[in-house]
């Protein structure tokens, strides 16, 4: 009992401290702008003091002593004994980061760790003792700071007037509510809306004046209630934006640039799950803008621009979506430069490049591995980034657009949906069952009727359709899901091809009926059904019935559409895809794993269905082979160390679970027993064709270490011969 109470106290402490630290980040940066209100310093002091006190109470002594050092410094500043200087702010920010790191550790392990942070403590105390900057300061500015509150050359920050100050008051009027409770309220309101709709229909036929009156009231109240509850899940984008000034400051200092941030529309509201999803892409874009976009002060001066660059963030609602614009007034992206880089990297031939419009050239920065940066910094320029931003945003159903003018700057526009909990979806039916297909993955619909049904052709046993001259693989939904056909559908009945896209590959889902697009509320399936990759969740329809939501990429994986080696048929929206294909051929996402003591091996991630761990006792022997029951099937296992003839088979401890890579081949799975799954890398792989031993394709240097590429297909053929025969019998 006492333990539970203590856990609760620790949780509360962590939650509260995180909130306070976020506020601190912003305030420290504000502080640097110049002399500031006494009350603000006092506020910062209180936050650190609270953390110190609670940490001491809970027995986290290292955290306590670290906070204490910061507190001593802050006390002197508060009392006017010391002037706030740049190095102080830097150290205090380091302190905030360290506290965060320790909190994270406490959250994960319950322990505060063994690091004592003596250096930081000493520096803070030295600063507090008036030793202004003489102590080693591990930031980019090692020189003693000038006495003025804002050192010359320091990046300057400015938020819009009126944005700061009032934050305190809001916190006082709010209550912290568990998200699970909000979700439950959403559910109930959804049901209330359904019941309301049914009553309205029923009541309309009765024509009872008294009833009509109360029905109207019910109607109004329900609608308002629904809106209100939906709002509770929304959070202003300022939750994210408030962290940006800190990011901007750090990056600007590291790059030696002067940057001012302007933010508009911080009150724009978004669902919290979306906010979470755009956090990283947004940070990345901002870093990029400072590192690549905004020029160094000397360059700016030479170009007759103000020395301090401006980064503008604008958020606003438009057409049921949220737009976020990130613009800088930097050098812009030179299309000629991109053209040259693209040719140099072999993405485009000189001829192709000459034909491309400037707009299309700009799109190239979203190609994996493409970077125009002259040099690689630790912030950006390694050519990973913009493609990740684009993928992340597209994953939540958003889009990314870029505009740039040489010499004037670049604007990146993110369009994101308001919420993930409610998504537009196309309702379809097949063999009497209704399903929802998320609009995000939907490209177009093709209706086939009468004669045109014959346009479905067969390549061996696979159905295909010629869509504008290209073969589109078809998956009849009823077959994929194994729904038994009660009445054999006549060949004349119309059929619909729902053309969808998963992982940049198109295919058609054939259904009997296409109904309507609806805004549906996504609800999770129970854990007992989580293993079925064909479904992303379920939703409740207008009539109170339940419909399953199809997971288009899950279906693609299940049926082999994605891993099939057919040529990529990326939507021909721009001319870029050709280039993308080129890059992706060289780039591969690989799963790295370890077998035995030293064997580092890799397989293409695209062939890996899952990573699993099995208890040793779950592994059974059948027909002289190791097998395990897996999702209702028998999964044959291959002990890789043995199969590869590794001399020193490391004995497995009988108690620890066994790592298994579930590898898909010919639409079926085989389990590869490995000692440890190491990492997933996305890399250009230069394979030497000389295999070091049978069962491998060759070796490559990945992450600076020699890694062998597993020849899984041939290995499976030799290790599990019957199994392969069985598959061939089907074919």
């Amino acid at each position, binding site marked *: 009992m006492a333990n539970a109470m203590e856990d609760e106290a620790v949780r509360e402490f962590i939650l509260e401290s995180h909130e306070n630290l976020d506020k601190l980040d912003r305030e420290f940066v504000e502080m640097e702008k110049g002399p500031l209100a006494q009350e603000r310093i006092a506020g910062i002091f209180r936050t650190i003091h609270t953390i110190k006190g609670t940490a001491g109470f809970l027995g986290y002594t290292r955290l306590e002593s670290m906070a204490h050092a910061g507190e001593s410094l802050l006390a002197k500043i508060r009392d006017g004994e010391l002037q706030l200087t740049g190095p102080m702010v830097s150290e205090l920010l380091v302190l905030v980061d360290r506290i965060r790191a320790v909190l994270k550790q406490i959250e994960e392990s319950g322990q505060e760790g063994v690091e004592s942070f003596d250096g930081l403590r000493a520096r803070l105390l030295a600063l507090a003792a008036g030793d202004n900057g003489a102590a080693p300061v591990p930031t980019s500015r090692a020189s003693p700071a000038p006495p003025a509150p804002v050192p010359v050359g320091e990046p300057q920050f400015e938020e819009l007037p009126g944005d700061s100050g009032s934050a305190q008051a809001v916190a006082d009027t709010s209550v912290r509510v568990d998200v699970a409770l909000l979700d439950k309220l959403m559910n109930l*309101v959804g049901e209330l809306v359904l019941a309301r709709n049914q009553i309205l229909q029923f009541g309309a036929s009765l024509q009872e004046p008294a009833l009509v009156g109360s029905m109207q009231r019910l109607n109004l109240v329900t609608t308002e209630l629904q809106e209100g509850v939906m709002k509770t899940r929304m959070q202003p984008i300022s939750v994210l934006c408030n962290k940006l000034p800190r990011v901007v400051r750090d990056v600007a200092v590291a790059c030696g640039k002067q940057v001012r941030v302007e933010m508009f529309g911080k009150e724009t509201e978004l669902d919290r799950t979306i906010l979470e999803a755009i956090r990283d892409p947004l940070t990345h874009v901002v870093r990029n803008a400072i590192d690549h976009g905004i020029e160094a002060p000397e360059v700016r001066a030479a170009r007759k621009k103000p020395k301090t660059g401006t980064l503008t963030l604008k958020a606003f609602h438009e057409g049921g979506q949220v737009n976020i614009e990130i613009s800088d007034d930097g050098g812009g992206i030179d299309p000629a430069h991109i053209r040259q880089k693209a040719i140099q990297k072999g993405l485009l031939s000189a001829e192709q490049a000459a034909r491309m419009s400037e707009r299309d050239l700009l799109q190239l920065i979203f190609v994996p591995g493409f970077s125009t940066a002259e040099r690689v910094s630790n912030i950006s320029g390694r050519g990973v980034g913009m493609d990740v931003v684009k993928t992340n945003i597209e994953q939540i159903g958003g889009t990314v657009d870029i505009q740039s003018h040489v010499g004037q700057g670049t604007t990146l526009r993110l369009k994101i949906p308001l919420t993930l909990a409610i998504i537009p979806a196309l309702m379809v039916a097949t063999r009497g069952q209704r399903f929802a297909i998320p609009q995000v993955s939907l490209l177009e619909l093709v209706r086939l009727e009468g004669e045109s049904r014959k346009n479905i052709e067969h390549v061996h046993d696979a159905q295909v359709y010629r869509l504008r001259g290209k073969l589109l693989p078809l998956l009849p939904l009823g077959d994929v899901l194994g729904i038994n056909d009660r009445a054999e559908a006549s060949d004349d009945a119309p059929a619909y091809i729902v053309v969808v896209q998963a992982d940049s590959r198109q295919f058609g889902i054939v259904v009997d009926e296409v109904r309507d697009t609806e805004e549906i509320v996504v609800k999770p399936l129970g854990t007992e*059904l989580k293993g079925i990759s064909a479904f992303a969740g*379920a939703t409740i329809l207008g009539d109170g019935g*339940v419909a*399953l939501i199809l997971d288009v990429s899950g279906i693609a994986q299940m049926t082999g559409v994605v891993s099939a080696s057919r040529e990529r048929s990326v939507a021909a929206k721009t001319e870029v895809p050709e280039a993308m294909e080129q890059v992706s051929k060289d780039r591969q996402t690989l799963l790295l794993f370890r077998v035995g003591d030293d064997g580092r091996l890799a397989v293409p991630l695209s062939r890996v269905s899952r990573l699993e761990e099995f208890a040793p006792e779950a592994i059974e022997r059948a027909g002289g082979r190791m097998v395990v029951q897996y999702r*209702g099937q028998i999964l044959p296992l291959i002990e890789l160390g043995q199969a590869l003839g590794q001399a020193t088979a490391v004995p497995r401890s009988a108690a620890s679970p066994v790592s298994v890579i579930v590898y898909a081949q010919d639409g079926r799975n085989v389990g590869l027993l490995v000692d440890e799954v190491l990492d997933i890398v996305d890399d250009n792989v230069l394979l030497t064709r000389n295999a070091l031993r049978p069962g491998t394709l060759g070796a490559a240097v990945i992450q600076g270490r020699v890694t062998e590429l597993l020849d899984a297909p041939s290995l499976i053929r030799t290790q599990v011969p019957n199994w392969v025969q069985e598959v061939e019998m089907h074919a």
Partner: protein
Amino acid sequence: MSADPLKGGVRTRQVCTFWVNGFLFGIPATLVQEVIRFQPLTPVPLAPATVSGLINLRGQIVTTLNLRRMLDFTDGPQDAQPMNVVVRVRDSAVSLQVDEVGDVLDVDEGNFEAPPQTLLGRARTLLRGVYKLEGKLILMIDPDMVTRAELLNVDPPSQNLWKPAARRVEHAQ
């Protein structure tokens, strides 16, 4: 209160009982969220055969499990309208389809016994024990076990990876 409602110091305990295939089963009443009459079900393709489908329980989507199949009984009559006993399992709810709902009974802890050694198969895993009442036994279902994957997959694998339908066979011959 102990975390395990079947053990602990309390002498009597309330059990929600129901009938499946002529046997009287029970589940601790504290875990039963509600009992509802037959609901139209949305079938879940590719799911294990014990999953009858999904129901809409006031906006919450609840998986319904077929207890007859889980206990290796034969399926009930075609037109049967089984009742739903909605049980809280960990943080979510599942619904158990039963033939008929019985009373909530007060049982004496002293009358609890482990399942007999001769009970084999899936029932052994699913049953935690038996309460001996006058003239009848209550077979106590272990609520922690009902969503275990090994109990759900009864039939020959129903969750096949996709095999293209009949056409493939024609070609082979």
